[in-house]
């Protein structure tokens, strides 16, 4: 570490415990950061595209995850390096914002960093590179807007949506039944979507999974699935036309919150208390019965006696239902969550056409289906199949991605063509725009164009094609015919036209990718001093 000395030769202490820290400055710092960013991008590079490979991650507790979802890989990777953490953040924000393209954004950022390194070697100042990237990203985003296409769909004609979701699913392990899964995802999103406001609340879609069975058995339930069973084994397993009381109070004697003591000092008091206790239970059950409930769903437990009373009065009940599920049930059935027995009224009951219990496999596992709800604004995707729980987890992640894509399309109907076509078109546009900028930035803009090429290149590489050859062929084709729909033919279908292959991506997803990647790269480039505790 560089030290400053005063006139007597003593070092100035600027940082606390200065000699224990390592410090990288200037160009070295940038190089080191770029190297770290590239290293992360390289890990993800092979997961890109429909023929991308998976990563196996072993967590700190020995649990195994197998996935090719960029955000999940990075999150579980447990990185230590600061810059690597930035990349993890990058992928995560893409996940939150868009839900898909989490791998692509990291690969893009990695490529931008690689190009930046070359420009640094040329002696271009990092800030100028960052400026150039900024200009270029603006050009790219505008160009995307220009080449994007609106596509029309409505509730009855959701085929285009299915096609887009299939593009997302085709890169996952579930691509065996991508068609049916995509349909499920689209139907789920349409069921909860508010087409007027163009908004979708994904919280209303619950994704449940259970190992065993076939992937083909995965189904969309217009209702709620609760991983619980009836509180008493002899309660009816199927209720038609259920009126559901949704309670957050336990079937137990009330517990006043103020501190108190009831002293029992005479036999009479003992007797009265006993009577009162019995009355409590009786009243509770009677209250539910009076308002016409035929099913009680409770957040808390029941006393044994209450349980039997319920059963005795022929009032099926479910206990220990989690808060989130309770809310979903309330939304789906149009009921109100009732915190006190006294407040129970017939209007507050939820309605469902059918409630049934279903058992699975050889073990005693049951689930409760609540279907044909009054207000079917909440749906559940129930994933079956998968030979193991890793498969179920991966399917859940894939479905989540597909849901996000469908949602984005409902928000914004614009699409661009996938398979690297959009990137190639942008690259051409940026390259053409570069000449118009005077100054050093021109080089940075060209570098940006080259970085854009790296995504289709990675796609081609992962699909076992000759990357450079394929890319240049597609590029010249796009330029010659001036049609931005040519991309990499990953699945060996025999055509480069992505319109024919039905490979779409959402416009906002792509734009977000470019913007986020550029931002992170700019941030990394601006760092010129890294101070870290070397050993501790």
């Amino acid at each position: 570490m560089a030290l400053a000395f005063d006139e007597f030769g003593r070092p100035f202490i600027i940082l606390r415990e200065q000699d224990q820290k390592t410090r990288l400055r200037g160009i070295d710092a940038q190089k080191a950061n770029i190297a770290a960013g590239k290293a992360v991008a390289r890990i993800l590079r092979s997961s890109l595209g429909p023929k991308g490979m998976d990563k196996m991650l072993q967590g700190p507790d020995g649990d195994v995850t197998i996935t090719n979802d960029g955000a999940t890989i990075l999150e579980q990777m447990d990185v230590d390096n600061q810059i690597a953490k930035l990349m993890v953040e990058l992928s995560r924000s893409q996940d939150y914002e868009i839900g898909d393209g989490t791998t692509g954004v990291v690969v893009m950022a990695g490529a931008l960093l690689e190009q930046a390194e070359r420009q640094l070697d040329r002696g271009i100042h990092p800030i100028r590179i960052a400026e150039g990237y900024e200009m270029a990203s603006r050009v790219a985003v505008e160009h995307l807007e220009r080449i994007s296409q609106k596509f029309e769909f409505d509730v009855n004609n959701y085929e285009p949506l299915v096609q887009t979701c299939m593009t997302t699913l085709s890169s996952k392990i579930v691509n065996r039944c991508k068609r049916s899964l995509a349909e499920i995802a689209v139907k789920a999103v349409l069921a909860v979507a508010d087409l007027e406001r163009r908004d979708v609340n994904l919280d209303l879609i619950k994704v449940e999974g259970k190992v065993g069975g076939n992937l083909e058995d995965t189904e969309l339930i217009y209702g709620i699935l609760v991983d619980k069973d009836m509180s008493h084994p002899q309660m009816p397993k199927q209720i038609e036309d259920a009126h559901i009381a949704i309670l957050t109070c336990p079937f137990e004697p009330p517990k006043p919150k103020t501190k108190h003591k009831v002293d029992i000092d005479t036999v009479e008091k003992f007797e009265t208390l006993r009577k009162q206790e019995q009355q409590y239970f009786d009243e509770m059950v009677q209250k539910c019965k009076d308002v016409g409930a035929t099913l009680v769903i409770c957040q808390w437990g029941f006393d044994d006696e209450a349980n039997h009373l319920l059963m005795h009065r022929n009032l099926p009940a479910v206990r220990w239902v989690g808060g989130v599920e309770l809310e979903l049930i309330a939304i789906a059935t149009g009921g109100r969550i009732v915190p006190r027995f006294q407040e129970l009224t017939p209007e507050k009951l939820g309605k469902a056409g059918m409630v049934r219990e279903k058992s699975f496999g050889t073990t005693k596992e049951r689930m409760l289906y609540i279907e044909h709800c009054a207000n079917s604004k909440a749906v559940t995707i129930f994933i079956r199949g998968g030979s193991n729980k890793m498969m179920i987890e991966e399917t859940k992640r894939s479905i989540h991605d597909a849901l996000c894509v469908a949602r984005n399309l409902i928000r914004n109907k614009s699409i661009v063509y996938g398979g690297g076509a959009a990137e190639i078109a942008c690259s051409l546009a940026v390259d053409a725009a570069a000449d118009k900028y005077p100054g050093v930035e021109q080089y940075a803009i060209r570098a940006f164009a080259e970085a854009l090429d790296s995504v289709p290149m990675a796609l081609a590489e992962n699909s076992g094609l000759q990357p450079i050859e394929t890319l240049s062929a597609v590029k010249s084709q796009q330029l010659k015919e001036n049609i931005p729909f040519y991309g990499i033919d990953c699945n060996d279908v025999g055509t480069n036209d992505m319109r024919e292959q039905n490979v779409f991506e959402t416009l906002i997803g792509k734009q977000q990718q470019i913007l986020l990647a550029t931002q992170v790269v700019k941030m990394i480039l601006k760092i010129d001093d890294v101070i870290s505790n070397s050993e501790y």
Partner: protein
Amino acid sequence: MPIDKIFKDDASEEKGERARMASFIGAMAVADLVKSTLGPKGMDKILQSTGRGHSVTVTNDGATILKSLHIDNPAAKVLVDISKVQDDEVGDGTTSVVVLAGELLREAEKLVTSKIHPMTIIAGYRMAAECAREALLKRVMDNKENAEKFRSDLMKIAMTTLCSKILSQDKEHFAEMAVDAIFRLKGSTNLESIQIIKKPGGSLRDSFLDEGFILDKKIGIGQPKRIENAKILVANTAMDTDKVKIYGARVRVDSMTKVAEIEGAEKEKMKDKVNKILAHGINCFVNRQLIYNFPEELFADAGVLAIEHADFEGIERLGLVTGGEIASTFDNPESVKLGHCKLIEEIMIGEDKLIHFSGVAMGQACSIVLRGASHHVLDEAERSLHDALCVLSQTVNDSRVLLGGGWPEMVMAKEVDELARKTAGKKSHAIEAFSRALVAIPTTIADNAGLDSAELVAQLRAKHHNEGCNAGIDVISGAVGDMEERGIYEAFKVKQAVLLSATEAAEMILRVDEIITCAPRRREDRM
């Protein structure tokens, strides 16, 4: 400049070829481990636990073996997991699924070394698995309509499952037992209602299925030991001291007399409860919770048999068997459904006294009493019987059956081979490999039985060239035989699950090109 390390200390990263190698080797090692237990002549394993007592388990159940292993290799964990799921879902075939997945990976490894991309292999495997499933579907038999035939199918399936287990000596006996038990469930797959009671002593042949119900409990002292035409109240209620549950209530008194009074009131309360229970007109009372001496005495006085501390499952089963409802309040005696049975008596099995309910109203639950030389034998017998029961209960719902003894594998292999010949491109290598992996199962069965597998499998293959052939490996006679004649049947559902799970697991492992192992979580040092 060198890249700073990205990961935390202790974390490791394996890439590309090395990662694939590591997962192949891990998975194959696990498959080889259980390989020798496959088939009727498969060997057992001894497992010694590291926990207290170093308890020993002897088993040849794949799922049990794999569950007890501490495995570090992530790919191996995938295989352990599929075996567990197979156990939960269909109950049998837990070894086959691991062996098949292992063989698929072994073949895949060869293909990878000859420069075929894993994605191509996966594509081929998928096509092959689909084709194999079709082949099985074409040859399934369904005897659901014919009750008698269906029963004999079930018997054969049970015997096939049991013949690889410790019970193979008495397989007819146990198969009969399992089939009877399953028919009582009437289509439900809830195996909880079949109670298996293990009592050391006697021989395995002395095990029996009781048409009534046996509860592993003792009858209270001074109460009748034998009740005919019993009316049973099944309850879940506190019979110790019935606490006042109102929050914050406590007893505070200032003199001894008052203590006595309250005690008296408490007793009175209990007595009330007992009287209410007696008002149901019962002569047998079974409670999930404890019954204290005082109420027990009261019951004895009334000549009612009181059984305490039956566990929750026991209560549930008893409710199912006798048709009574599980009660916790006793205010309306007229509307509580009571259970009925013809006879309750205390019986002796070995040295232990048990309570036997016979002549029950509804026969949905039942008890199987297993006898055997030692605890290890009994444990293994229970596992084997459980496997058989699982398979049968699944077959009752999905009545399609196949022949066994390597027959399904040969049928699939033949179809897959044909597909390979028709397919153009590199995928055909993978499809061919799939068929080789399928053949590995009969090969292993033959090897484990000490037979000349190469000869037998070649003979089988030749026989299967003819359409509609029923040939499989007959381990007993050591030759190729007609499986239909020998009565070796397997459930379609099991075979299908084996095929699909194994392919899926192999695919999952093949897709991996990088393994990242996080630093193990540090245990806090306990002083």
